[in-house]
């Protein structure tokens, strides 16, 4: 079989970062964060559906939500949202034909902002502020 032809079955290779440029790393990060945020959306809807089961079921969940494991999970959601959002801003700017010569620098700059924002939220969340 000629495996070299384009095929949807090659989708997994989107996530192979070996020998790739910074643009593809951003491409991979954007897909991973999008998948993570989509999973979170369904989890969020599932949690909200507990309201139907009555106030006690929801209160039990809120106790669970304060556990460190869930907080770490929430931190991943915040990180995913920030990274995906800022990367999306870069893509929009570039897609409108602007800042193309500095698109790598733009990505690095936005990811530094993302890192700073993630650290800020982590401190706030885990210090209880």
């Amino acid at each position, binding site marked *: 079989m000629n495996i070299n032809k384009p095929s949807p079955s090659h989708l997994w290779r*989107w996530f192979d970062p070996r020998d790739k440029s910074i*643009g593809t790393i951003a491409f991979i990060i954007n897909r991973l964060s999008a998948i993570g945020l989509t999973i979170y959306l369904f989890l969020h809807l599932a949690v909200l559906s507990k309201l139907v089961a009555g106030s006690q079921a929801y209160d039990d969940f809120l106790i669970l939500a304060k556990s460190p494991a869930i907080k770490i999970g929430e931190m991943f959601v915040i990180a995913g949202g920030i990274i995906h959002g800022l990367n999306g801003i*870069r893509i929009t700017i570039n897609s*409108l034909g602007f800042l193309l010569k500095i698109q790598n620098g733009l990505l690095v700059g936005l990811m530094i902002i993302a890192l700073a924002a993630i650290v800020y939220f982590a401190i706030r969340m885990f210090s209880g502020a």
Partner: protein
Amino acid sequence: MNDTIWTIELKIFRQRADAQRYFQTFQIEINPDEYVLDAIEKVWAFHDRSLTFRHACHHSTCGACGMLVNGIEKLTCITSIRSVTQNNGKLLIEPLRNFPVLSDLVVDTSSMFKALEEIGFNQVASLPSACLPYERKTLEHERSEYQRLVDCIECGMCISACPVSLTDSNYLGPAVLAAAHDASSQPLSNKILEIVDSRDGLWRCHNAFECSAVCPSNVEPGLRIMKMRQTVIAHRIKKLFSRG
């Protein structure tokens, strides 16, 4: 070129039509200032005459010898041995991705050439049209009737590197969209607009810019696709306000 001789191991992809693929290993001695294409030719000349690969000009003009060298798209005639391995090192040589393999390292790039023809790709263009948008600033004193060869050598390496071309056989691909940008530097024709402003055209690109990273000729397909988007968006807005 100095007299140094390196011993290197070439692991080369082999496949005939739809037969089972495999890798064959060859050990050769070569000057590190020679090129990867020279190493492949040595394998063909001294080890295995059945090895098939494409090559012609040997000076990065024809675009025939694009291959994967250690997993990265390289024009093998200008990739020195020294830049990709070391003495007693290894080289993995594979055909370009996203094109059907015809034989060993030879891929069928006819789909790209057909699409280029459809878009009206011309190898000679007016000076402003052949240059990248940011290069045009230096052309103020040049006369627009001057013509030159466009930079694209139709090697197909941008299509090989593109993640979207990897999964979607209908996607026009960076080479074709860059050519469309080249052809559309003059007023946008309805024919080009119809081809590029489509599901498999400009809007399928996902901004990985891998095409620009591997292009050996500084065509910057990624930049051209984005500039073309800008042109198409401007065209749509104009159309919207000219309806009344």
